[in-house]
């Protein structure tokens, strides 16, 4: 048709653009209206706090080991207030990247045991590993043998196990922290735990926050005054938590959550 009448196609195109000229527009005015994040949006990493102002993160490393490009670098205290543990690019790269690169290039593989935990003699670990032929499925016997050798599980040993057996450090750590009879520190070695305990908010602040949350009454003032920061954080989180039950739980930091704009907006027509 348009081949017969020259210029007809052009005219149609012009008419189409003229019609679009009056149609509703698709632009999102970004800073004013934040884009809709779907509930499954994975783009944002954030640490969640529970109602009492403590981190929900138990440093179980599940996220770190699930992260495909090893971009999560985390350290902290585990829930039993036991131990300073660390996971992140240094270890992952030091252990996995260089190890594999060297393994393939036929060079001596370095021992990535960490200096700041003090290098140890890894011969017993090697023996245990060799006994159970480096198989992560026999993790528990290996760990027990290691603890038998050292009396506890040194980090260097755990890292060596993960390095040799190919199992993730986080997996071994999770296994070891699950069984009660596996220790991470020498008997009677509690300085670090004490230091850690000093930095945590006292139980009383939790009790007051709990009362505030349950019976809504004014939080009872405890005799030992808690650190101001913790108290403020806890109370603020009590406010935030009521908002969490809104529709947009997943999207956004507590700021967006708190704003009335974030919640009652209809989905984008598009």
């Amino acid at each position, binding site marked *: 048709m*348009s081949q017969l009448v020259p210029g007809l196609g052009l005219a149609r195109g012009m008419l189409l653009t003229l019609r679009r000229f009056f149609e509703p527009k698709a632009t999102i005015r970004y800073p004013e209206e934040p884009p809709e994040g*779907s509930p499954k949006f994975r783009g944002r990493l954030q640490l969640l706090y529970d109602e009492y102002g403590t981190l929900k993160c138990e440093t179980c490393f599940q996220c770190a080991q699930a992260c*495909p490009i090893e971009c999560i670098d985390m350290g902290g205290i585990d829930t039993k207030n036991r131990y300073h543990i660390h996971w992140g690019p240094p270890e992952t790269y030091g252990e*996995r*990247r260089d190890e594999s690169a060297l393994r393939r290039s036929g060079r001596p593989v370095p021992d990535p045991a960490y200096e700041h935990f003090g290098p140890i003699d890894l011969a017993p670990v090697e023996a245990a590993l060799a006994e159970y032929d480096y198989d992560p499925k026999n993790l528990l016997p290996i760990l027990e043998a290691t603890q038998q050798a050292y009396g506890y599980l040194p980090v260097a040993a755990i890292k060596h196990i993960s390095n040799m057996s190919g199992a993730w450090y986080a997996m071994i750590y999770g296994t070891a922290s699950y069984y009660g009879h596996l220790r991470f520190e020498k008997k009677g070695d509690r300085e670090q735990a004490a230091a850690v305990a000093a930095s945590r908010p006292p139980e009383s602040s939790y009790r007051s926050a709990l009362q505030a949350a349950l019976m809504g009454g004014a939080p009872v003032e405890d005799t030992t005054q808690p650190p101001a920061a913790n108290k403020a954080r806890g109370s603020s989180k009590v406010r935030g938590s009521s908002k969490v039950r809104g529709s947009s739980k997943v999207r956004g930091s507590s700021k967006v959550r708190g704003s009335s704009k974030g919640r009652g907006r209809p989905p984008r027509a598009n």
Partner: protein
Amino acid sequence: MATSAPISRRRASADDPRVILEEQVGVFEPVPPFPPRTEREAEFYTLGDGEMFLNMGPQHPSTHGVLRVVVKINGEVVTDLDPVLGYLHRGVEKLCENSDYHQAICYLDPLEYVSALFCEWPAVMAFEKLMDVTVPRRAEYIRVLSGELLRIASHALFMGWMALDLGGLTPILWSFIERDEIVEMLGALTGARMLFNYYRIGGVNGDLNHEFMSRLGDWMTRATEQHDANVGLLNENEIFVRRMRDLGRVDRETALRMCMTGPNLRATGVPFDVRRSHPYSVYPELDFDIPTRDEGDCLARYLLRLDEVKQSLRIIDQCLNQMPDGPVMAKLPRLLRPRPGRAYAAVESPRGQYANYAISDGTDQPFRLRIHDPSFIHLQSVGLLMPGHLIADTMAVMASLDPIMGGVDK
């Protein structure tokens, strides 16, 4: 510009300001500073009578991604052309060798960044072959569904780019709106808008959810007419048609010799589509045609992609009808250590046959992962299609082959 005397400028040395350097500036001749290494290079970098080099890219506005093309022109006529790659090279294959099987999938994502699922798919299939995993049928259907959606999005973007390289400003934004809807719903399904790390070994990451299905249904009701309205701007436009017809023509023998695949091969009349010629996933159960066209010029490639969009819509409809129930992931150990072996898997990406060749040595990391990218092959054939056309057509031909530099440079 070929000036006899080199333009030079005196400036103080960065190391020692008292030292004054006489340096040549302002001139960039694309001729490499070293003697030609190959026969072809020697032939290309010798100028004939009245010829000159024009260096397009890597900062040229319309080379998709960072591509550098050294064009040998005689007036406005392109006599020869030499693409220079590697500005986006990330060594993905090496990265995959040093990361375990799950991580490798994620590294493959940003290769064809406009249709990322098709980069994961062959790798996932190859790994499944390596460890003899059978994927649940629901997962296969979800893969086909999302893949075809992404194919439509990619083709929509192709049309926009095509028009943009011909100087039309509007279609690129319309097609981005069209693509944005699809990408939004895929974001609801996979959790990411562009680099969805969604296909997993033995299934997919997460089942269909309500938001995705509602968005999809909303979109399917108006997809066809919206698409027709968008392409109505160009299909009958005399200027467009006259420019695209008989441009960059290639016959089927040459196309086969150039290892072309996908729409560019089908535009020459060869009905080679991996979905049919080497069926994978659940495509044998689905009913769709392989559109082909006989004249292998840019217009044919453009129109062929429009037909493919319609076929993809058909496939999506059937997927939604035949979607079975069941799990979306096979039971797998956390630590994957396939037996030593080799596996080759290919899928039909919007640009052609996208293939991966994986070798396992028994460890938890692939011993070798070869990535075969169709854009790489098609970009190579630009040098074959271009000579005799004008500078203005260089970008048009390149756009009609639709290479993605992320995939070309790996």
